[in-house]
């Protein structure tokens, strides 16, 4: 059983997160349900990335509780594209395979299952032809597809996306959003996505959590759009 009795794969209860002595996220509660796309929105500095760090276990919660009902090996993460290390000597295959690693002591080599998972993920993301190429020599969109394949190779149940399309052009952004939707539909993933893209939220989001509102808004996407008056 990888969800609680309500069908949630992730529960965040009254969580407060502080950074450098300053409270950034205060008393936030929500549940991510099986197979839903929950959009995390809010202005820059509203605490979206901090909340994601808390969920990923990268920073401790000052208060409250974060529960991942499916186990950490079923969680995958995709951040915004970081192009600072373009000359890192890593092939696409090496990167996607690394996504199959799970916590704890494991065999020091990749098993046949690991290789099959990586091959499936590369096929799904249509990057097989780049398998032996160095990541730094791919375009930004291709690199982000590789990192998404690394996430998918884990066969996750929860996919956490932190502004995954920032710094990418509109065509590639549209393609990636389409991929997120199809992964949700085909694999039944639960997706928590931090984004500024209202088009994506209105088109694909099942629910919205808006931070730094008083109180924080959590509800259906249609209701959130109504509150915003359709304003951009």
């Amino acid at each position, binding site marked *: 059983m990888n969800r609680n009795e309500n069908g949630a794969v992730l529960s965040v209860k009254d969580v407060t997160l502080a950074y450098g002595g300053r409270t950034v996220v205060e008393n936030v509660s929500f549940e991510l349900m099986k197979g839903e796309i929950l959009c995390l929105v809010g202005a820059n500095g509203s605490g979206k990335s901090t909340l994601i760090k808390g969920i*990923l*276990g*990268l920073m401790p919660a000052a208060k409250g509780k974060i529960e991942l009902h499916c186990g*950490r*090996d079923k*969680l*995958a*993460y995709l*951040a915004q594209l970081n192009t600072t290390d373009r*000359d*890192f*000597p*890593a*092939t696409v295959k*090496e*990167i996607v*395979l*690394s996504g199959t*690693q*799970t*916590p704890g002591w494991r065999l*020091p*080599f*990749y098993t046949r299952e690991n290789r099959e998972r990586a091959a499936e993920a590369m096929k799904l993301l249509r990057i097989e032809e780049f398998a*032996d*190429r*160095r990541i730094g*020599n791919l375009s930004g969109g291709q690199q982000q597809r590789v990192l998404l394949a*690394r996430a998918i190779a*884990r066969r996750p149940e929860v996919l*956490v996306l932190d502004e995954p399309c920032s710094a990418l052009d509109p065509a590639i952004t549209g393609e990636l959003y389409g991929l997120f939707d199809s992964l949700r539909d085909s694999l039944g993933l639960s997706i928590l996505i931090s984004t500024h893209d209202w088009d994506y939220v209105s088109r694909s989001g099942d629910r919205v959590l808006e931070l730094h509102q008083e109180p924080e808004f959590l509800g259906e996407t249609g209701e959130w759009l109504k509150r915003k008056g359709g304003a951009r």
Partner: protein
Amino acid sequence: MGAFFEALQFPFMYRALIVGVLVSLCAALLGVVLVLKHYSLIGHGLGEVGFASLALAVALDLPPMTVAIPLVVIASFLIMYVSQRAGSSGEIAIAILSTAALSAGVLITSVSKGFNIDVSGYMFGSILAMTKTDVYLSAGLSALVLLLYGLLFNRLFAITYDEVNARATGINVTMYQFVISFLTAITVVLGMRMMGTMLISSLIIFPAITAKRLAGSFKAMTITAAVVSVICFAIGLCISFLWSLPTGASVVGVNLVALLLSRLVPAKN
């Protein structure tokens, strides 16, 4: 060249060759991770700490290794801890620690016996410094580094390529980083008496940078760094013996030539 092979009959020469090859191999493997993680200054900082600890050992008339190993290992943990917490200012922490250690070494030396032959040898290395114990220690260290590197290879790749993602997926990144720190400290201690405390970091940095240019994958970079490092050491030792030059500086010179030659090769796609 014949003279070099004849010289290998002498115990000090074959000891130097064995220790040098093994330490070069370990330093190159660790250097791949350190260079890619932008921790290459750690080797330099540990070399300076090694100098201070050797100066302390001479002043207190204690066996060098018994003082150097614990102090350099502690310093490596401290550097890694500060680098983790300080983020980008980790480089400043390393700079402070290394200059402080160098100053401490100079002060200890000047208030004790002055710059005698031992300290000078430690700073710039000596081919004569290797003992039977060093050979055994180097063999043990190499076995440990090769074993751990082989066992942790895929983990090290995941951590080196994307530390945040590794942490997010539940991998104990901090533990692996401290393992790398520990192995680096031991490698530096074993290599610094031959290469010199001032130059030991070159064994960590140069082969990795050369290999980074030549290799198209992490695995290829690791193998290339190991091969380049061992070949450069052997050539450097040969040059050092034939022309009576300091070993450390000769090995660094050969590594520098290899690095410059690698720049002539087009970058990998």
